[in-house]
């Protein structure tokens, strides 16, 4: 009887262990709190090292199965501590006190900016070292430089006029991408020139400035907002003439990750289609 009881107890314990192991992360894993870095880790073939992600990390599809460990750059400390990862990676927006708490628990924390192609290159090199995959990192660096050079060469050889663009991140207030921002760098590779040159980062700008600058095209990242419903926008020529381009997948363009070059290629192709259509429909090319 006692043997039977011990056997049942053992089986129950095994079941419990199996159930809990389903969500328990392997020690020594990586927690990524940035969608771009999650994509990079997977692109380097290290998805198996990921034990948790941020709620914003949604690509590749398979990472959605991972447990979440906070929002973008906002770690949930208790959950991460319980997972006992070896490394937490994110951009520099993480609260320094949270980072210190993780470090005190013996977890390595890497927080660096991730805003443009140079930042991306540095992250690729760092990830190669941290995840012990220098060969894959080197290949990604070569691919990055090759794609950038390719876009530049393509634009220079095409002899096309640069289109003046406004990048709308949010419509009210009019939040846009300024000089040195990621959309600015992305747009340049797609043959666009940002009308907001004097302001850096993501400034909120005046409508009067937009009316004065009269952009050739508006790249609309505010997907969930309707650009037609705001009456104040009707004075802008690009709006009136329908030269508003909604990127196919803004996550590919707004994340400095491995998919960004595909996003730029899509943007370029959509711009060519838009202005080819305008030409055939009789509208003058700006």
């Amino acid at each position, binding site marked *: 009887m006692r043997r039977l009881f011990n056997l049942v107890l053992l089986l129950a314990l095994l079941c419990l262990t199996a159930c809990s192991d389903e969500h328990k992360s392997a020690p020594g894993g990586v927690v990524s709190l940035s969608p771009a870095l999650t994509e990079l880790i997977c692109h380097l073939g290290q998805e198996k090292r990921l034990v948790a992600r941020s709620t914003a990390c949604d690509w590749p599809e398979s990472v959605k199965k991972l447990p979440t460990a906070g929002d973008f750059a906002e770690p949930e400390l208790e959950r991460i501590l319980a997972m006992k990862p070896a490394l937490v990676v994110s951009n520099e927006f993480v609260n320094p006190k949270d980072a210190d708490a993780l470090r005190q628990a013996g977890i390595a924390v890497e927080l660096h900016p991730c805003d443009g192609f140079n930042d991306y290159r540095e992250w690729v090199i760092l990830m190669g070292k941290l995840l012990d995959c220098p060969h894959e990192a080197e290949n990604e660096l070569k691919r990055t430089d090759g794609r950038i050079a390719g876009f530049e060469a393509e634009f220079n050889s095409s002899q096309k006029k640069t289109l003046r663009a406004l990048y709308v991140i949010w419509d*009210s207030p009019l939040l846009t991408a300024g000089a040195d921002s990621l959309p600015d760098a992305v747009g340049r590779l797609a043959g666009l020139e940002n009308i907001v040159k*004097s302001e850096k980062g993501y*400034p909120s700008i005046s409508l*009067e400035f937009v*009316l004065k600058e009269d952009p050739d095209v508006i790249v609309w990242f505010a997907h969930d907002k309707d650009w037609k419903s705001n009456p*104040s926008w009707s004075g802008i020529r690009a709006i009136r003439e329908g030269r508003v381009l909604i990127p196919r997948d803004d996550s590919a363009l707004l994340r400095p990750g491995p998919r960004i070059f595909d996003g730029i290629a899509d943007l370029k192709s959509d711009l060519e289609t838009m202005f080819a259509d305008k030409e055939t429909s009789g509208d003058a090319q700006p």
Partner: protein
Amino acid sequence: MKTARIILIYLAAALAAAVCGVLFGATRIPLSEFVQDGALNPIVELRIVRTAAAAVVGASLAVSGLIFQAVLRNSLAEPYLLGVSGGAGLGAAGAILLGFSAWGFMSVPLFALLGAVTANLLVFAAVRRRTAEELLLGGVMIGTLASSLLMVLITFSHSRDMAGVVWWMLGSVQNVDPARQLAPTAVLLCAATVFLLFRAGDVDLLTFGPEYAWNHGVNARLMTVILLALASLLAAVTVSMAGIIGFCGLVVPHIVRRLHGGSHRKILIPAALAGAVYLMLADILGRVVSPVRELPVGMVTAAVGCPVFLWLLNRSRAGS
């Protein structure tokens, strides 16, 4: 000075400010380019709408503040006292953060109006005796509750949405729909001004206290509720249109009262016009000082209003 002459002076100042509002902005437009190909230059069109919006919002806030200060007999009373700002902020933030802003341009203003009116109704429903003091305390409580809920929403929001909420809370007259927002608010302002001109005597009596007003034949409690509801409605409508613009409703009535005395029949229209001038000038300043980024008008009204008010306060104290 006679009332008519005072009104004429304020009217001239308002017209001058309106002309400046159309002439000056982020860019310099020669007069010859005001009309292009038979149509109004879009920049000029934008300036006309926002100048008109600044005038209506400023006038509404000043009238609302004037009534609040008179009825509550409190120098610190302002248009947002009965939970309007907290309720409107909660409504607007809810619309932005919960994704209702995707319904269209008018969704955020409508939610803000809904929030402000709901907060107001809650104050009137929650306070049983509805005396000025109790309504004031009820307003502070409901406003604080709404502000706390707003903070909770902001805490759970993403940075892009948060920028929208914060900008909205700083106030702006840039994105005003002339047909669906400006015209109805202007009609409400005119109707409220006419009503208040007819009832200016009652307002004067209420400034001496409800018992005094009662003894002079005014139903003090009913009139207090009507006046506060009207002033709150004016504030709620303006806040839904242009966000939370501080100082205008607090400073302008004080200044006008100090300059022209306490008769509401005499100072109602000057206060409205002074509010319009104040906000039009603040809007021009916000556009000219920082042409690309543009300063939020609520920030300019506070930055200008605070030192001006302190100077006036000290000057009058020194004089007395």
